[in-house]
């Protein structure tokens, strides 16, 4: 067992443990914080495997941006400190969640383990460098990459359209809202209904 093996086992154990804690904790903000630890140590796992760029981008995107947004959204709902009866789940939901999670894990494991069981990588002389990652993304896989970009753009425009359309329909109810269809706020909406 080399040093790299030991470090990888440790990082993997932290990842798995924090993932488990993230779904079992009774406090909603703690779940997000454990998710943070999980995604951060996953970046560590990439680093141990010699994929520096992937690990750093994981840190930049998931830890630095996505979990921050999750925490931000949680704080908007005034997530309480300590366990709370209102946001607890009944036992059958927990059971269903555990079953679904186990099934997904089994499915992924049965698919991926045979696929990569024989794969080896020489970690002392890493072959995948940043230019190679870039060439793979913008060369070989450029069409899936572009399709994903379009999907994200559609989602963005869709979210924007949904929020605008809902505002517009509400505003059309009242005379006040109809006069300023572009600038209807929640205040103007209640005026129109009153």
């Amino acid at each position, binding site marked *: 067992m080399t040093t790299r093996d030991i470090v990888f086992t440790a990082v993997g154990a932290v990842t798995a443990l924090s993932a488990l804690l993230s779904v079992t904790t009774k*406090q909603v*903000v*703690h779940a997000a*914080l454990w998710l*943070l630890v999980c995604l*951060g140590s996953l970046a560590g796992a990439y680093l141990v495997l010699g994929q*520096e*760029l992937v690990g*750093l*981008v994981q*840190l*930049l995107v998931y*830890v*630095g*941006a996505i*979990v*921050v*947004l999750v*925490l*931000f959204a949680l*704080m*908007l709902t*005034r*997530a309480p*400190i*300590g366990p709370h009866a209102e946001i607890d789940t009944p036992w059958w939901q927990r059971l269903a969640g555990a079953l679904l999670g186990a099934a997904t894990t089994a499915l992924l494991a049965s698919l991926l383990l045979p696929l990569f069981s024989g794969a080896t990588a020489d970690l002392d002389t890493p072959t995948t460098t*940043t230019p190679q990652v870039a060439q793979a993304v913008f060369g070989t896989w450029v069409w899936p990459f572009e399709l994903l970009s379009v999907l994200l753009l559609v989602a963005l425009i869709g979210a924007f359209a949904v929020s605008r359309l809902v505002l517009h329909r509400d505003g059309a109810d009242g005379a006040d809202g109809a006069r300023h269809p572009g600038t209807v706020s929640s205040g103007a909406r209640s005026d129109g209904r009153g």
Partner: protein
Amino acid sequence: MSDLAPWLEVVLRAVAVLAAFLVLPLLVGQTEHKVMAHMQGRLGPMYAGGFHGWAQLVADGVKFVQKEDITPARADRWVFRLAPFVALIPYLVALAVIPLSPRVVGADVAASVVLVLAVIGVGVIGTLMAGWASANKYSLLGAMRAAAQLVSYELPMVLAVASVALAAGTLSLVSIAEAWNPWWLLWQLPGAVVFLVAALAELQRPPFDMPLADSEIVFGAFTEYTGLRFAFFLLAEYAGIVVMSLLFAVLYLGGWSGPLEQWLGWLWTVLKGFLVAVVVIWLRVSWPRMREDQLQRLAWVWLVPMALFQLALTAVGVVVFP
């Protein structure tokens, strides 16, 4: 230092980075005291230590250590106590990979630019944890303002840095500074302006100190903190100024390029970084605090398009003058 044992070299480098991390923020803090005072027509600290109050921040540190470490009764104990360290450690990691010269660098990492950006993005989580765990409405408001601000300003900052990396054709800070030439001062000017403004916002320094706004929400996410933990948040802010100033010097001002750079390279980087830090202090004295909507408007209406324009400009430059 190649003739030393590997473990000894690692320990020496870590100690050197830690020393820089503890000394440079104090220097910036003292400079802020004095420069601000003189810009406002007063003297600033004059007594502590004798000569122009040089020991003022040391005295402040001693005062912070003596204060009681209070955790509010309704706070989330562990998250509250961990938050200052989560805010502080990312800047320590960032400082370790910023080169002062090709040989004076804590740890030479291949993709150091991405590493610096990634860990700076992690720092905000300390503020969020502090704000939520304090069980105080002002803290929560401050944390939410901080999150909204930092998520908005991270995008223009990453785009501006991406433009420099594109111009140099590498993700290593050492290679970027080596690829620099004086024309970049003009070519990368829009990106440099975007970076400086976004860095100020990331540090939550005036005029971007909405998350702390003392006249509205006491002291934002740090309201409930006392003693050493509060001092750690302050240290994180000043360490942030050091990191951002040195980063600006390395990315946009050529780092160690200057006369006798074989021997004095590290001195030029430090001096350029110090100059940027003085500009950061100057901006604090000159501008009033921005309102939340003005702040978001500045990020999305001005900085993001400017950064995208800079990216296009860089791409054209790289293709036309290879």
